[in-house]
């Protein structure tokens, strides 16, 4: 069910402002691709174009193509809502729906779409998704309690369970651990390692050790100056990026010599 993504000549705009310029990259299926780079370089913006969440912001638009298995996600006959069902997303801050229980949160993708689901099927989806997110054992006795009563790390795994409950092909993660303590971070990183056998995963992170630990390939983004668009500097196997990057800027960033 995992699929590759090819990005060609992608320019991303907020109104007239070009935030990210000329991105060209391939995201391999069943692997973890990490995006690193300084704040404001467009990593998150680029990530959000992969499931067409970018255009939710008024005035935001893109030029170029993002193709999933050869299908251009920005084609004129493509429904952004359908794209988002295939490309799930986990956000920086855990955001379970406060009005829903843990089980309802997992089923949110189904319930919010007014789809009917039998009780048995719903239970199966809840259990499978929570097991998939390594959360089942912690919450199985309180599935009907509010999701916002969980700890931050548990909430984030609940959000991952919610994202995989709709069975996407690709999972995007926008700094999923930046609001979490080291133990919860470890739990999420272990989970990412398990999930990559089923999903194509793209993760944005500010933590370079995390990128080195969890990802197979790493892309480094940078921007020349404030007000300039961010650019993809290089993308390569994680081991290569962290040992012998081709570009000097990457090495400077990774070793902490920049600015």
């Amino acid at each position: 069910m995992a699929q590759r993504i090819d990005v060609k000549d992608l320019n991303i705009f907020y109104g007239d402002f070009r935030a990210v310029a000329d991105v060209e990259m391939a995201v391999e299926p069943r692997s973890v691709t990490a995006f690193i780079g300084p704040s404001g370089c467009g990593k998150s913006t680029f990530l959000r174009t992969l499931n067409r969440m970018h255009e939710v912001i008024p005035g935001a638009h893109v030029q170029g193509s993002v193709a999933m298995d050869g299908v251009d996600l920005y084609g004129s006959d493509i429904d952004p809502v359908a794209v988002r069902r295939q490309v799930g997303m986990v956000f920086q801050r855990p955001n379970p729906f406060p009005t829903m229980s843990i089980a309802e949160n997992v089923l949110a993708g189904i319930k919010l779409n007014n789809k009917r689901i039998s009780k048995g099927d719903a239970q199966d989806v809840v259990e499978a998704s929570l097991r998939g997110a390594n959360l089942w054992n912690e919450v199985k006795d309180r599935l009907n309690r509010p999701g916002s009563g969980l700890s931050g790390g548990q909430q984030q795994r609940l959000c991952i369970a919610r994202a995989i409950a709709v069975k996407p092909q690709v999972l995007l993660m926008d700094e999923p651990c930046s609001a979490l303590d080291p133990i919860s971070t470890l739990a999420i990183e272990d989970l990412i390692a398990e999930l990559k056998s089923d999903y194509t995963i793209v993760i944005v992170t500010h933590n370079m050790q995390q990128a080195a630990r969890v990802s197979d390939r790493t892309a480094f983004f940078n921007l020349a100056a404030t007000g300039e668009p961010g650019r993809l500097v290089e993308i390569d196997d994680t081991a290569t990026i962290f040992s012998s990057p081709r570009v000097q800027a990457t090495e400077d960033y990774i070793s902490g010599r920049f600015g």
Partner: protein
Amino acid sequence: MTATTLPEGNPELRALLRQVDKGRHRKDRVMKGLIYAAFVVAMLPLISVSWTVIVNGIERFNAYFLTHSMRGVFGGMDAGGIYHAIIGTLEITLAATLISVPIGLLTAIYLVEYGRGSLARAVTFFVDVMTGIPSIVAGLFAYALFAVLLGPGVRMGIVGAVALSVLMIPVVVRSCEEMLRLVPNELREAALALGVPRWLVVIKVVLRTSIAGIGTGITLAIARIIGETAPLLITVGVIDSINFNLFEGRMMTLPVYVYRQYSQGLVPCTPGDLACIPTINYDRAWAAALTLILIVMLLNLVGRLITRFFAPKNLG
């Protein structure tokens, strides 16, 4: 070295930390005094009004008063009630709410979720303007509107409901807008990222999350219009008997009833007529005012219950 072995500690540091800012202390006390005084000043009229209404109204406030109309009541008769006015107030307020809430809520949804550019700015501007419309003007507007449609001199409950809607819509828009804006954007994005179409996000996430606040806002909007007198005097008129039909004939409402009774003044009783109560009109007015306050209180209570029932539960 710890503090226990050195009870006095470093004298210089102690002096530095103990330095009391006299000016700040004084300001603190003065401000505290002012704030408490403002609170008392704000509470005084409220308590005074409630006390006066209760003391003057409780005498005639009984089951008979609540269940009888003014039909066939004249002079200083120890009779008459507000049943017809309660019916009118409840029906007209309900109709006004039914008109205002859909329009107001949809406008608020448009402004928060969809509205961009000049149209949204224009809507916001006109809502602001509407907030400032004097109630008598709203009454004249509704009267004129129905006079054009149905001929001059038309008086019925629904005209009053339309007049009240003109006053209520901007209040509903404003409060619903506030509440919808309080819903964190992250929840909208979370739902959108799950592949939920926008309209379902609005209905099932945004409205569901803010329903408690919207309920409170609507309750306050109702409380705002339920005591309106002037527009109802023009559009609905005055009547002594019971009329359940919003679409035909005059109706009585509580505020108009209070006004009407009070304006009739003392009854000139013939001396020795024990069945004649000179102050009956005043007594009825106060009792009706008390009823109106109780209805508003009851409504607020219901609003509170709705809020509590629907509020997002954090730790359950």
